């Protein structure tokens, strides 16, 4: 399988990259790890005539600590997320999630920016970014703007990213030290997309939940921020009845497809199971400081 022909561009700055996309319009695609785009190009389901490789823009490959916010460049790979001591200390849920994506070789090339910008409902990072309340930095011909991850996704492969724009960075507010977290993903085998998955970040005040955020992967055409489920657990001790109620509230907003991973009914049920497991694990970690 050989992709169609294209002109290869390797700009050295975001400004140059945006200029190339503007000049070539619909025929041009930004390109990072290539592990979504190259397979589509081999199948000729994508045939861009210009590829704008972001690998030459060194600013995009950095992880920056800004105190209350961590800023991750678009071309930081999943492998780099896993290796980062900064993230291990301040946002350990990123490592936990990245380790459940694809396999080691693909994590060498796959990037955070590609994972969140592509709009594939099977990708794991979008729900995590919604859980964390992250914002995406989008650069275009008229400058740069920020969009909340919770507002970014419209439908499968449709996002607020406009033609000619590049997602350059993800800004993540750092949860307080001692927060609990978990990314629970049910999959048939390593490398698979989720049958259902849930991200949870919470804080405890004594034994009471002080704050909580829950989001879901691959159980609708977009990632889902489970607002009602998140609200339900705040102020409780996360007793069994509360966990069950939160799982039910999360299930209620899902709309999974029936596919090789199971029937819609099964996948909805599993979304609830993942939420329950993630809540219990996150609370446990917050209690024990693990």
């Amino acid at each position, binding site marked *: 399988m050989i992709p169609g022909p294209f002109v290869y561009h390797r700009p050295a700055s975001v400004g140059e990259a945006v200029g190339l996309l503007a000049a070539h319009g619909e025929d041009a695609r930004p390109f990072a790890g290539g592990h979504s785009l*190259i397979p589509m190009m081999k199948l000729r389901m994508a045939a861009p005539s210009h590829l704008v*490789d972001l690998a030459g823009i060194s600013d995009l490959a950095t992880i920056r600590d800004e105190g209350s916010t961590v800023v991750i460049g678009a071309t930081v790979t999943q492998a780099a997320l896993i290796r980062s001591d900064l993230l291990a200390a301040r946002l350990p849920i990123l490592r936990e999630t990245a380790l459940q994506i694809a396999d080691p*070789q693909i994590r*060498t090339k796959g990037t955070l920016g590609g994972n969140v910008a592509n709009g594939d409902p099977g990708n794991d990072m979008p729900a995590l970014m919604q859980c964390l309340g992250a914002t995406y930095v989008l650069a275009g011909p008229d400058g740069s703007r920020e969009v909340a991850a919770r507002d970014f996704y419209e439908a499968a492969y449709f996002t607020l990213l406009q033609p000619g724009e590049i997602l350059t960075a993800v800004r993540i507010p750092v949860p307080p030290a001692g927060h609990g977290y978990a990314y629970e993903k049910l999959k048939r085998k390593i490398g698979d997309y989720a049958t259902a998955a849930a991200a949870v970040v919470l804080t405890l005040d004594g034994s009471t939940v002080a704050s909580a955020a829950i989001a879901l992967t691959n159980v609708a055409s977009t990632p889902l921020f489970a607002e009602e489920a998140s609200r339900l657990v705040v102020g409780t001790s996360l007793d069994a009845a509360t966990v069950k109620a939160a799982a039910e509230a999360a299930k209620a907003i899902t709309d999974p497809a029936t596919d090789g991973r199971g029937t819609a009914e099964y996948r909805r049920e599993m979304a609830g199971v993942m939420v329950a497991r993630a809540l219990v694990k996150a609370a446990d970690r917050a209690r024990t400081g693990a």
Partner: protein
Amino acid sequence: MSEIDTIPVSLTVNGRKVQRFVEPRTLLIHFLREELNLTGAHIGCETSHCGACTVEIDGASVKSCTMFAVQANGASVTTVEGLANADGTLHALQEGFRQMHGLQCGFCTPGMLMRAKVLLSENPDPTEEEIRFGIAGNLCRCTGYQNIVKAIQYAAAKLNGRTYQEAAE
């Protein structure tokens, strides 16, 4: 004839500098096999699932079927042809695969070896579980993986100056 110009790439492959003009759409696996006649890395699934095309690029494992040759411009690439020791003796991993019967048909073996090399460089003494997780991107349809795991354990032991002791089953 293509209307797209070829572009120059310059990289190091198995310690040797190579320069070629390539079409941008040339995949690295095709570049290695067809331009350089290095047919060790195999084309299996062509969909980045099977890992038979795995090579080492700047110390990391990559599936060379899902990367353009132009992306490797300036990089150092090692294929299975570059794995043996400089004096021609087998690398510890190659010896391990031979001693522990880590292959049957051999199709997945070049990818397994190159993935295992990077795994051991990152984690010189992995547990069985870490080995299995580390080679999760490489599929073998013959062995059931048992002897591949042992082969990697054999190599890890040898590289750490120990003699491999097979665990009782």
